[in-house]
């Protein structure tokens, strides 16, 4: 049933591989979760305002990027893990961003 077991550092290390020291506690995770919720609320509120698109769109993107980063760095643990995982992900993410930006520009999607 409910097993209470204190994990030794070695066991913790074995279970994840590539963990650095510094593991957010459940409380910190909840805190991040609340920040995410608040950011989402702000996003929706901002979307309903009447501000010009020139401000609205960068703001929405900024908020989305912050949420994205919070989930990736904390929930997905990239901030604390071996840098090599991040390398793969960054290559994929930035590659996608650059390639598709070029495609959209060539279609004059932004003009």
């Amino acid at each position, binding site marked *: *049933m*409910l*097993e*209470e*077991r*204190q*994990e030794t550092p070695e066991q913790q290390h*074995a*279970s*994840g*591989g*590539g963990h650095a020291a510094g*593991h957010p*506690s*459940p409380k910190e*995770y*909840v805190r*991040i*979760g609340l920040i*995410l*919720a608040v950011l*989402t*609320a702000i*996003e*929706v509120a*901002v*979307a*309903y305002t009447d501000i010009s*698109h020139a401000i*609205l*769109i960068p703001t*929405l*993107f900024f*908020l*989305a990027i912050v*949420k*994205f980063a919070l*989930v*990736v760095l*904390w*929930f*997905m643990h990239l901030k604390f893990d*071996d840098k*090599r*995982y991040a390398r*793969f*992900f960054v*290559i*994929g*993410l930035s*590659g*996608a*961003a650059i*390639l*598709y930006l070029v*495609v*959209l520009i060539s*279609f*004059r*999607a932004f003009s």
Partner: protein
Amino acid sequence: MADVAVAHGQGEHPETTTGLPHTKLAMWLFLASECLLFGALISTYVLYRGRSVEGPFPHDVFDIPYTSVSAFVLLASSLTMVLALSAAQEGDKGRTRLWLLATAVLGMVFVGGQVYEFTVFYNEGLKLSTNLFGTTFYVLTGFHGVHVTVGILMLLSLVGLSYAERLPADPSFPIEMVGLYWHFVDIVWIVIFTVVYLVPTPNPGPPGA
């Protein structure tokens, strides 16, 4: 030394050149490749935004408050996912199962919410074939929804295996792997929610109209 070419099993990882477990490396490479997949779908949506020749158009059908609830639900599921992993790392089987189940349930609520949303849009005249908006919207969110569904299957499988005592004594590694996939599906939604729902669509019509 590495004379065991065997894939990992019970919470113990065979020695690897980098010291990183195979599966975690593979999962991150896979997620990196998925960025290219969703990038293409999102770019197609962005390219065709505002170019539908006929309606319904986004502002005709979108219910932002409704979808915002969906967004909260999925974000909450990421939190429960990470709590499940924490519980697993502390060896608390009961709470692990609870949080995993919660994540799955939240995921199901999300998918259910999407199905309902699609049904409403469909009844309002937005089908796959109606216009560019229908085409790009349903396919993008549909691909995402399928990914969520696969995630739910994996979560429920973990719960089931846990109850059947078929998970390793320390199940944190498989849970972590499923968690990485789940969080990825969440961050894709963060982008979709902003790009599709919140960023306003310019006046409808083909370019130059």
